[in-house]
C-alpha cells in the first residue's frame, strides 16, 4: 500500500474510532436532521404546498445543516489538548492528512445522510422505489465537493476561538452550487423524469467535485501550518 494512502487511512481510522466511541457528532447531527425534517413537515401549509414540492429542498437543507454539525465536531476533537499538533508534528505529507480528514468527514456525513433519508421518507411520504439509487448517487456526488471545502474550512477554523461559528459562515456560500444542483436533480428523480433532463446538473456537480477537491487539497497545507 502506498505510504500516503496508509497514513490517510490511519488518520481517518483514528477519527472514526474516536467518533464511534463518543458518538457525539453522529448523534447530534442525526437528532439535528430529524428536528429539521420535523420542522419542515409541520411548518408546511398542505393547502398551499404539497409534500412532493417541498421534499427535494427539505432533504438537501437537512443534509447540508446536518453535515455542518458533523464536520464541526470532527475538528473540535483536534482542538482539545492541541491534538492537531500531534498530527502536524508527525512525518505525514499534508496531502495525506487532508485525505484522511476528508475520508473521515465523508464517512460521518454519509452516516448522517443514511439515517436522515429514511426519516425523510417517513415525514414526507415520498416513494423512493424508483429513485432511491439515483438519490444515493446524487448525494455522493454533491456531498464530496462540499465536504472537501468543509474539511479545509474546518482546519482553518480549528485555530480560532469561534470555530463553531466560523465553519458555517465560511462554508455556506460554497455549499450553494452543489445544493442547487442536488435539489434540481432530486426533484426530477422524484418526478420520474428522464436522465437527459438531469445531465446538465449532474455535470455541474461532478465539475464542482473535481475543482473543489483539487483546490482544497492544494490549499490545505497553507491552512494548517502556522
Amino acid at each position: 500500500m502506498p505510504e500516503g494512502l496508509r497514513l490517510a487511512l490511519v488518520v481517518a481510522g483514528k477519527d472514526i474510532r474516536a467518533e464511534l466511541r463518543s458518538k457525539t457528532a453522529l448523534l447530534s447531527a442525526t437528532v439535528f436532521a430529524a428536528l429539521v425534517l420535523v420542522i419542515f413537515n409541520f411548518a408546511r401549509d398542505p393547502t398551499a404546498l404539497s409534500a412532493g414540492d417541498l421534499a427535494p429542498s427539505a432533504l438537501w437543507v437537512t443534509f447540508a445543516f446536518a453535515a455542518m454539525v458533523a464536520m464541526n465536531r470532527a475538528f473540535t476533537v483536534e482542538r482539545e489538548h492541541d491534538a492537531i499538533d500531534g498530527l502536524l508534528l508527525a512525518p505525514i505529507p499534508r496531502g495525506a492528512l487532508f485525505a484522511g480528514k476528508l475520508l473521515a468527514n465523508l464517512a460521518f456525513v454519509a452516516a448522517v445522510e443514511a439515517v436522515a433519508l429514511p426519516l425523510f421518507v417517513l415525514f414526507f411520504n415520498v416513494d423512493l422505489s424508483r429513485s432511491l439509487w439515483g438519490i444515493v448517487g446524487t448525494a455522493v456526488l454533491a456531498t464530496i465537493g462540499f465536504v472537501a471545502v468543509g474539511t479545509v474550512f474546518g482546519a482553518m477554523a480549528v485555530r480560532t476561538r469561534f470555530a463553531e461559528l466560523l465553519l458555517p459562515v465560511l462554508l455556506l456560500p460554497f455549499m450553494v452550487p452543489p445544493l442547487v444542483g442536488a435539489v434540481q436533480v432530486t426533484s426530477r428523480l422524484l418526478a420520474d423524469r428522464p436522465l437527459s433532463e438531469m445531465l446538465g446538473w449532474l455535470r455541474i456537480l461532478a465539475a464542482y467535485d473535481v475543482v473543489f477537491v483539487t483546490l482544497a487539497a492544494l490549499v490545505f497545507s497553507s491552512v494548517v501550518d502556522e
Partner: protein
Amino acid sequence: MPSSDGAILDAVGLERAFGALRVLRGLDVRVRAGEALVVAGPNGAGKTTLLRVLAGLARPSSGEVWVLGARVGPSNPDARRPIGFVSHQSMLYDDLTVRENVVLAARLYGLPDPGAAAERALAAVGLDGRGDERPRHLSRGLLQRASIARALVHAPRLLLLDEPFTGLDAPAGERLRELLAERLAAGLALVLVTHHLDEAWQLASRVAVLAGGRWVLEEPRVGELAGFLPRYHALVHA
C-alpha cells in the same frame, strides 16, 4: 546550510513575528548528539515559540531549522521524523485510550510494530497497566507522562520539551530525569525549556537564557545552580 560538525539540531537566524510583535529575534541554536540545552527565561521571552519553530509546528518569519541535515518545513515531512515534542498540551485524544493514543503516534511514524513500541514507551514513563484509561480520567501528572510516552514512542533523535516536569510528583520527576539521562547517553539531543532550573540543572550540558526573543546568555553548565541563579535573576530582571 546545516553545519557538518555532528550537530543534530542546527537552527540559524530564527525570527518569528506576530504582526508588529517580534517574538524571536535572530536566534541560532545548535545541539549535538548527547547534549542537553536547557533554556530558561521570563514569561513571554519566546521559549514556547522557539520550541514550536524548532519542531516545525510554526514557520519562522526568517531563518532555517535543520535536523540531521534536513531542512524542517511543511514540504519536507521526513525532516520531522527524528523530532519528539512535549508541549504544554498533551496532544492526546480524549476519546481514545492512552495506549491507543501512543499506538496512533507509532503508526503515524510508520513503526513496524506499533503495539510493542507503545508498550515500551508506556513502560518507560511508568504507565504500563494504565494504558486502557482515557486521558480525561488521568491526573495532570499522569497526563504529562502519557504525553511524554507519545513523544518518545518513535525513539526521536531530537527531543524538545516544554516544561516537562509540570505536574509530576517527585518520584515521577526523578524517573523522567533518569530516562532523559539514559537517552542522552545513547545520543539523544535535547532542548528543554523550563522556569524551574533546579529540575533540569543536572541534565544540562549547556544553559541558555532567553529574554525579549534574544539569547542574553548561553554557556556550558558549570558548577552548582546556586552559583548561577544570581546571574540569571540579574539578566532576566535587567
